[in-house]
Each structure stands twice: as C-alpha cells, then as structure tokens.
C-alpha cells in the first residue's frame, strides 16, 4: 500500500485542455482563438489538436495564439507566426502549396473519372443487345421445383 501511495504522489497531476485561466476576457477574441486552436496540431501528441490536448506544449501554443490575437494579429497572421516557428507539421489542415495540390485534387479528379467511367458503362449496358436467357436443363428444372416447394 505504501508503494502505491508513493507511486501516486510521483505521478504528475494531469494538465488539462483549455484551462479556465487561459480564456480571454473578450469572447470574440476567445472564439477566434478556439477556431485557430482546432486547426493546429499538438506537436508532441499523436494526432491531437492543441485545443483538445492535455500536453504542456499544447498549453504553451494556446497561450501563444492568444498572445498574438491580443497583440492585434489577424487569424492568418497568428497561424503564420506559429508555422514560421514550428513548421508546416503543425497545420492539421494542409495547405494546397507545392505537391499538396494532388491531395486536394485527388477527390474531385477521382469523382469525375468515376462518373465518366460509370456513364460509359451505363451507355454500353443500355445499348447492348439483349442476350437470350438459356433455357433450364431438365436437371435444373427438377432442382428448381424442389427448391420452390420448400
């Protein structure tokens, strides 16, 4: 039991996503901060945004975002400020710059290709000559009767 209590004391108290003391007084500014936070990645976490994350670093980033907004930055400027320091990796919503256009265009291109192929297929099915349905053999007829009886 003593060991358990000791272990408990050693466990760092969990820090917590958005603390009451971080919240800005101006609700409009705070709403913008939340919006921005939802699109920034917590760098030390696995796939979490800084708004939801409990990590110390996420808190620092949240405070940094709020600092920039209070200093009068626009949303874009505040994000650019963070990206300059932490790299493109913090953006959960990737830009369309460079090769990333492929990522963004993939869906629409595939959809158009799919619709095109589908249309060609449907055209062909619509105009295909009707195939004669082969008559059932006696054996098949007997089996059919058996199944239908069931």
């Amino acid at each position, binding site marked *: 039991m003593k060991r358990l209590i000791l272990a408990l004391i050693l*466990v760092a108290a969990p820090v917590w996503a958005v603390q009451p003391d971080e919240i800005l007084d101006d609700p409009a500014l705070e709403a913008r901060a939340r919006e921005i936070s939802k699109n920034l990645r917590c760098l030390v976490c696995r796939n979490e945004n800084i708004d939801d994350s409990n990590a110390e670093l996420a808190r620092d980033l949240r405070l940094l975002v709020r600092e920039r907004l209070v200093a009068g930055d626009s949303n874009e400027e505040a994000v650019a400020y963070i990206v300059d320091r932490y790299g493109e990796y913090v953006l959960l919503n990737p830009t369309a710059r460079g090769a*990333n256009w492929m990522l963004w265009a993939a*869906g629409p291109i595939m959809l158009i290709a799919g619709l095109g192929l589908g249309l060609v297929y449907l055209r062909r099915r619509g105009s295909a000559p009707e195939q004669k349905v082969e008559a059932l053999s006696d054996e098949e007829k007997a089996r059919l009767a058996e199944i239908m009886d069931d």
Partner: protein
Amino acid sequence: MITELGHFALVLAFLVACVQAVVPLIGAHKRWPGWMAVAEPAANAQFLLTAFSFAALTYAFVTSDFSLKLVVENSHSMKPMLYKVSGVWGNHEGSMLLWVLILTLFGATAAWFGGALPPTLKARVLAVQSAISVAFFAFILFTSNPFLRLAVPPFDGKDLNPLLQDPGLAFHPPFLYLGYVGLSMAFSFAVAALIEGRVDAAWARWVRPWTLAAWVFLTIGIGLGSWWAYYELGWGGFWFWDPVENASFMPWLIAAALLHSAIVVEKRESLKSWTILLAIMAFGFSLIGTFIVRSGVITSVHAFANDPERGVFILFILAFFMGGALMLYAARASAMEAKGIFGMVSRESGLVLNNILLAVAAFVVFIGTIWPLVAEIAFARKLSVGAPFFNMAFTPFMVVLGLVLPVGAMLPWKRASLSRTFKKLLPVFVLALAIGGLAWAVQSGRSLLGPVGMFLGSWLVFGSAVDLWTRTGSAGFKRLMRLPRADWGKSVAHAGLGVTMLGISGLMAWEQEDILVAQTGEPFDIAGYTLVLDKVERVQGPNYFSTMGTFSLSKDGKAISTLHPEKRTYPVAKMPTTEAAIDNGFLRDIYVVIGDPQTDGGWAVRSYYKPLANWIWGGSILMAIGGMLSLSDRRYRVAAGARKRTAAIGVPAE
C-alpha cells in the same frame, strides 16, 4: 504446461493451414473429390486448435501467470476480471491471436454452412481462406509470439493501459476484427471465382451474407469505438479522423459498396468484374488497416507499441495477397461478361452511382491517411493531414449520397422514370425541406451545417419509410408485417444512416461548451440547464484512486439528476484518465468533466450541452439491425433447405 500446449496447438494449426491451402486447390484443379474433401476437416481442425491456443492464453491472463511476458506487460493481479479477460486482446500479440481465431472461425463456418456450394468452388474458397491463415500464423509465430516465458517472473504485472479498462473498449476490438476478418470471406470467394472463371447470380447470393455479416460487425465495432471516445477521452469528441479510425472506416465504406454491387450481380447479372474488384479491395483495406495499426509508420492515438520488422512482414502479406489477386483479376476479369441490360435511369444505375460515391469517398480517406507518409518520402515535407481536411473533403460525398439515396432506392430495375419515382417522394421531400428550414430559422448562428444535416437526415428517414410503404402496394398495414425481411432491412439501415446524419450535424452545429472555475455550492448555467458542484471527494477503486465530483443538474428549479465526473489515477500504469459524467437524454446530453483544483479553492470544470449526441450511435445500431434483418431473410436459407432434402433423398440410394 497449459501455456506450452497452447503454443504447440498454434504450431499445429499453422501446419494444418499449410495443408489446407494446397491440397484442396490441387484437388479442385484435377477434380479429385478426395483431395477437395480435405478442406472441410482441415478447416475444423484449424479452428479448434486456434481456439484451444486462445483459451490457453486467456487462462494465463485469468490466473495472472506472470511467468508469461505478455501477461506481465498487460495485466495486474488486482485488475477486475472483465479486464483480465479483455487484456488478452488489449495488446499486439494477443489481438493478433484473436485475429486468426476469427479468421479460422470464418473458414470453419464456410465449411459448415457451405454445403450448397459446388464442391470445386468450396474447396477453392477454403484453400484461399487457409492461405491467409498461413500468412498470419507465420506472422504470429515468427514476429509476435504471445507464449514467450520469462526466466525470472516478477511478483506482479505492469497493468493494462487504463484507457482500455472500460466495458466499451473491452468489446470494441472483437467486433472490429469480426468485421475486418469477415471481409476475408468475400476475398476468398472472389479469388476462388476468378480461379473458377465463373461469376453468376448464385455466387453473388453466397458472397452477400458474408459481406453483410462483416459489415454489420464493422458497424457495431466502429460505433462502440466512437461511443467509447465520446465518454472516455474527456471532451466528447466522437470521431477524430485518426489513421486508425480511418483504417476501420475505409473497409466499412468499401464493404457498403460491395453489398450494393453484389445485389446487381445477384438480380441482374451485371457489374460482375467490378464486384470482384471491390471484394478484393475490401479485404485489401482491412490488411492496410492492420498495417497502419501495427507498423507504427503513421502516428496515431491508438496504435500498438510496435516495431518495423512487423510492419515489413505485414507489408509482404499485403503485397502477396493484393498483388496475387489483382494479377489474377487482370488475367480473368474480361471473361466475366455482363448479361442484364438496363437504361440510364434505373435501379442499376442508382447502385452504380452509390458505388462511385462510396468508393471515391473511401479513396479520399485513404489518400488523406497516407499523404503524410507520401509527402515525407517523396517531397521531404513533414506535414499533417487532420480532421479539418477530412471534414472538408469527405463530407460532400456523404451529402450527395444522402441526397440521391431515397430516390435511387425506389427506382425500379431495368428502366425507370425519375419523375414518377420522385412524385411518390415529393411529400416527404417537402417535409424534410420544412424541417431544414425550421432548423435554419430557430438557430442563432447562420451556419448551413445544422439545417442541411436536418434536411438530409429527415429526407433519408422519411424516404425509407415511403420506400417500405410503397412495397405494400394497396394492401397497407396487413402486408407491411409480411414484407420480406430484406425489404425491412434495407429501409431500417437507410433510416439508420439518416439518424446518424441528424446526430452528427446536430451535435457539430449546436454544441455548447463552458469552461470555468466552479466553487462548491455556487450554481452555473449551460444552455438553460443549471449545474451545482455539491462536493469533491477522494475515492479508491479496485486498482485506481479517484477524485470524484458530485454535481446536481436541474432545469428551471426542477432537479434532473446527480452527476459524478471523476479524475482517476492508475498508480501501476502511472496514468491519469478523466471519466466524464453524462446525463443522457433523447434530444441532448449534458456532459460534465472535472479538472484540477484551483488556488482559490474552486475546481476547473468543463460542461457541455450536446444536442442529438445519442442519435449518432442510435443510427449505427439501426444500421446494424437493418443488416441483421436482411441477413435473416428467408431467401438466403432456401438453398440450405434444398440441401437437406437432397441429402435425405441421397441416403436410400447408397
């Protein structure tokens, strides 16, 4: 001793699988009945041996046998029994064993229920299924052996990750694996049909129940996982577009597409080669999912601790089965000629559109999931693709799908008239528009999300009802209860999709959040409800310590319920967890989380008003029920009945 027997059974199962993968295949090619017949007892033996092996591992967990490395790393003597058992699959090695257990179970059920299959097809299906088993038995035995002993066993274990010590998550992996692995049956049937060179309506009728079952299990598994995330992670998110979630979502989408295209093969003998391709891809995405979860190449919240050697092994399995199947497909697909002809506007073309939307949506999820990897390898850019991308790129497909679904579902086969079908749906279309308009008028913000979601959701729900009602013709209620189960299943599942859409859009559009420092006894408001923090106390659980708050929830002075959010610390695993307290309601959840004590004596508290939250999982349950109804349709059992009769006739002749 039991552990060693379990290990030995696993090795034996591996050997049986090797035999079953080869002998029936040769038998089917040479038409040797004896060789083909090997498949059936082998499938049974494989399943029984694996089940024994799994039972042996479970026994080690239940009795806390700390001479086993796996038990030490994932269990603890003070853990509740439920989590001792679920700890078996709460880790990489054990979950792989569960994976192959389910794989062999599906193989065995194919042997039990496959009596109506032509013998060559059955032999080939079982052989292909067994080839998959061979790969995964080898994977377990050579890279992830769960039966390794420790020379010096410790006194106690290191405990299971506390986040996983939860009833929702105890059953999430088994369902998910039943779904993932169930798709292996569709794959085996597809490859067997390619070898056979024959795809017809009967083939589609055999393959559809397996796909349907897999899809139902996936739906339940994904639903459970999302529900768990909602109440366990502490802020009520239900879907994070995390790589591991995507890994289960892609097979779900493809399986949904496969279900629908198999209907066209069954009823109209068209779309054959596309259906085969979908069956191959569905299992391919399952394997990709396995790779993502276990290789560690893509960072994710849920991934198991892992090493690259395993990743490479799975990549080889993936390359072998996908490469082999697709090569076979390229060689044989042209032989699958379509028979039925149909017009531009018809049920068939509706289902083609369904397939395009689902397949492209799955592709979008896929490219978003692997893009960080591609960008890093090919362009040396380290970047993230997260929820905002997926929300933007994926949602439009679902909107279009929801828009066309009720109409497509009611179009007659072969040749249809859009205006005639739409006329039947016009009243509910207007009704759905009115509901969307009402949502627009009532909400305070000017966001489109809520109203569009309400419109689509109700359009789907009412549209499904109309679909079912028109099936009765003029006979009305009397006929309604006697409609085939498949018709009911279709409508219930489609309505379920609508309910889920209502839930997601309602929650995302109208959620309210409040973060504050609560003092004991001082009431505060959230969305018209009043919360009071009554007290905070320290509580000790079986293997954790907890800080538990007591809140009273009331509205307009009327008490509703008492909520107990907790902050737990698991001393052995050295991990804290938050346990949210939720007051569940039909139209809304009130969700309370307690945080740290503040210097002024108050407690940090987050409270949420979450409208329609439960509809998300309610819809998932409806979808699963719809699938099960369809699965229980009498028409799938006709073949089974016919089989019994031939057997009965066959006896006196001998």
